[in-house]
């Protein structure tokens, strides 16, 4: 177990490796429905979240649907 530094939605965040995208979403208490993730600017399908692990200095962007016209 090592600590790594990732960037989540432009905020630096220290996490313990190994950590998958599923675990990151759970850690941040984000609803899975209506959420999409891009890791290092590439979209990761929901079905791959549990097998996609974060590395040091990865950039993660988490998007969700909100009110809009």
């Amino acid at each position, binding site marked *: 177990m090592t600590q790594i530094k990732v960037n989540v*939605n*432009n905020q630096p965040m220290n996490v313990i490796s190994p950590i998958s995208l599923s675990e990151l979403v759970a850690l*941040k*208490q*984000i*609803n899975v*429905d*209506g*959420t*999409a*993730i*891009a890791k290092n600017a590439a*979209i*990761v*399908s*929901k079905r791959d979240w549990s097998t996609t692990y974060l590395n040091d200095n990865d950039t993660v*962007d*988490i*998007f*969700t*649907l*909100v*009110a*809009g*016209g």
Partner: protein
Amino acid sequence: MLTLAKHTFSSRLLTGTGKFSNATTMKSAVSAAQSNIVTLAMKRVASNNAQDETLKALRELGVTLLPNTSGAKNAQEAVFAAELSYEALGSQWVKLEIHPDQRYLLPDPIETLRAAETLVKKGFNVLPYCGADPVLCKRLEDVGCAAVMPLGAPIGSNQGLQTAPFLKIIVEQASIPVIVDAGIGKPSEAMAAMEMGVDAVLVNTAIATARNPVAMAKAFASAVETGRCAFEAGLGATSNVALASSPLTAFLEPTV
């Protein structure tokens, strides 16, 4: 019935979910509007436990979700936003909007056409927000869009059908549904658009910012239905001179 990409919808009023004071009011307004299709936007998650309740409320209503690409400044960003919304919802519907200029939020026609072409090829049902340009609307139709969404006036401006003469040309030429998006401020304007023969209208600000959004949603629903009914009934011709409705017999004049 409104048909978009082989799907049929009973309502011709699409509703946007922005600017409501809360998700409960939004849900009641969408319900009163009887809308089957409702728009959403995509954004980065702000912080823990601060999630928008909009999606949950809309899931409960069982409406078709139409995520938009608002915030995209070019075709590449719009395609990325559409792909994100596909991953988020598993839905192929997308309201394509690319408006780099913040003051008027006018859609970029070149980037919109480029993005539309790409998204159609990727299998999306593309509904592009666009200027009321009949030539552009034909081009968007040619690349396979499910509908065109020309503006009546700038987004959120409540200025009504400033583009009316061009909307008429678009309706005349289109073989795909025409949905007037943006600018409609009053039920009477929605009705006027429907009388003109557009297939549907999208209303957000006029409902969300009304003193009573639920009552206003209901008013828009009636107006859209009435306007459509009038269009289907076939409006009478206009004339520059009077054309008598009563027989012009001279029965009041003394008989000879």
